[in-house]
């Protein structure tokens, strides 16, 4: 196998908790606490988990928007992020991001043309007089009417704004696009349009996506591989259909069974007790043991490593659970 496009090793992003008048650091919120994974060129990888599991922080750390505490990020074989701004510029072109909220992620004072071609000018990929032409081409690519070039974001609906965000991200012909809940704020009928657009653009330009979502249905639809996070760590990862059809880790099981689906019939539902503990003070051992229906005494002492595992039914994957052999 060729070197992956993105290789992340033992990445940690901690946020200091400051107290008192001297803002002394009294602890850390361990939002991302030792995450390792890779994304191949042209691959769409899903990152799924509930609020507070660290998936958004992980995406932002990869983009260089949050400082990491430890770990390595390699992009196309080169370490990210270089300290010097000039050295980081090529990466800023090659990695783009699409944010969740289409209302706050577009500058309300800029026109559509400014928004979607700003990056092209900044990176010197077009000359100022080629701007309109580039803008028209981008709008057509995301299925919007070129007449809207001189309008402002407030004139568009959520779905159309998300198309503009996509046009902005695609303008620079990136290799990797990090999508942070790109369709969560959209209604179902519009959501399908935007997902289809992302799939088409990904195929046309051989893009890699890191697709962050809490919605397993969306992940299942768009991603070939999925990474399940819980409280800052990866608990299970592998082929999407294999994991959703035959989850091994107790958390993945609960997550899959909790999704209400139309036409579903009396599936065995795992209802977890309690809530996600605080990432400032995560439980010892396996972080899921406080809510796990299968927890045993060892689970509170030993942090299970993420290991390769072949269950009797379902695809090979990586699982972090002490009892995976009994549960599979």
């Amino acid at each position: 196998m060729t070197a992956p496009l993105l290789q992340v090793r033992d990445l940690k992003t901690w946020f200091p908790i400051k107290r008192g008048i001297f803002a002394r650091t009294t602890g850390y919120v361990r939002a991302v606490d030792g995450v390792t994974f890779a994304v191949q060129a042209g691959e769409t990888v899903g990152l799924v988990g509930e609020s507070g599991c660290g998936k958004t922080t992980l995406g932002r750390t990869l983009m260089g928007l949050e400082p990491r505490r430890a770990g390595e990020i390699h992009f196309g074989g080169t370490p990210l992020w270089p300290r010097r701004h000039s050295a980081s510029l090529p990466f800023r072109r090659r990695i783009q991001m699409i944010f969740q909220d289409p209302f706050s992620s577009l500058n309300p004072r800029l026109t559509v043309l400014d928004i979607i071609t700003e990056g092209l000018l900044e990176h010197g990929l077009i000359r100022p007089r080629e701007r309109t032409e580039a803008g028209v081409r981008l709008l057509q690519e995301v299925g919007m009417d070129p007449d809207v070039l001189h309008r402002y974001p407030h004139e568009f609906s959520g779905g159309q704004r998300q198309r503009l965000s996509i046009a902005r991200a695609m303008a620079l012909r990136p290799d990797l696009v990090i999508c942070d809940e790109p369709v969560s704020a959209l209604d179902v009928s519009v959501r399908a349009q935007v997902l289809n657009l992302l799939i088409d653009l990904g195929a046309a330009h051989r893009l890699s996506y890191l697709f962050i979502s809490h919605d397993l249905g969306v992940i299942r639809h768009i991603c070939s591989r999925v990474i399940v996070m819980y409280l800052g760590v990866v608990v299970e990862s592998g082929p999407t259909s294999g994991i959703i059809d035959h989850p091994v880790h107790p958390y993945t099981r609960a997550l899959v069974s909790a999704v209400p689906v139309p036409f579903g019939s009396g599936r065995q539902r795992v209802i977890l007790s309690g809530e996600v503990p605080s990432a400032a003070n995560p439980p010892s051992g396996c972080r899921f043991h406080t809510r796990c229906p299968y927890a045993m005494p060892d689970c509170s002492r030993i942090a299970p490593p993420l290991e390769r595992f072949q269950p009797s039914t379902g695809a090979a994957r990586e699982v972090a659970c002490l009892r995976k052999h009994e549960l599979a």
Partner: protein
Amino acid sequence: MNSNPPLLDIQNLSVAFDTDEGPLTAVENVSFSIARGEVLGLVGESGCGKSVTALSLLRLIPMPPGRIQSGKVVFDNRDLLRLPASELQPIRGGQISMIFQEPASALSPLHRVGAQLMETLRLHQAIDRPAAWATSVEWLRKVGIPDPEQRMQAYPYELSGGMLQRVMIAMALMTRPELIIADEPTTALDVTIQAQVLQLLRDMRTQSTALLLITHDLGVVWEMCDRVLVMYASQIVEEGPRSELFHRPCHPYTRALLGSVISLTGSAERLVTIDGQVPSPLSYPRGCRFAPRCPYAFDRCRAGQPPLESIAPQRRSACFMASAFAQGGDMP
């Protein structure tokens, strides 16, 4: 249909808001009823008028700019829209409770959770403080809040979204209402917490409380509801018992909505999309409001609005093609 009078009967409800660009019709000619103990789902996308419908039932929309233009909301042989405020107040939170989408903004941030629970009880029942305290603690325990005595002393900001929604549910249930209106009660919650809250709402049905569940999530509707209403562009476009409506939708909008649901089991085929977007309430099309996006639309649809008509027992649809849909074409 049973011959018992419905618990709540809504007839021709229309609500408008005055805006700078003119009056905006949020709810138009909406009629439906809820039976005792029934779980009725009200489904639609953002802006379709489902929340305004729910709020109007208890006259909770801000007036002005809102205006209830016409209609009747008959509850207990009384029209809630014409009741004096003094008589409506005991019904709000007493016989009819509401659960809102954002529990954090529905509770007062300045008062302890316990004080808010006790206030609700004492407004509706002749009960002294110690008894109200005890009842509140008991209800917090019933909705699955650990250490209820301590939680009574907590301020809303100290509790998570799932906990607050439980507090809201306890508050809604403890006056033993006949109807609960829940407006997207689990939308702000994570799926595992949503599963807990839905389970709780299911358990609470044993006391024959009716539930009007407003949601955009068809999976939640499937799991919870007996009967379903579908709204589009301020109007009800389809109504029917859950299974029949899901298996044989008789309005193209319902069909499209069901088609765009992303399955957890299906293969990665292309998603069905609904072309275009929801029309603005300030400029609804003249004919059927779904016609510009409808794959089945023909000239008649663009000329006039199809009325919401009965097509089978307990089923209504506002589509000229409804009977054709009713006869053929099952959903997968």
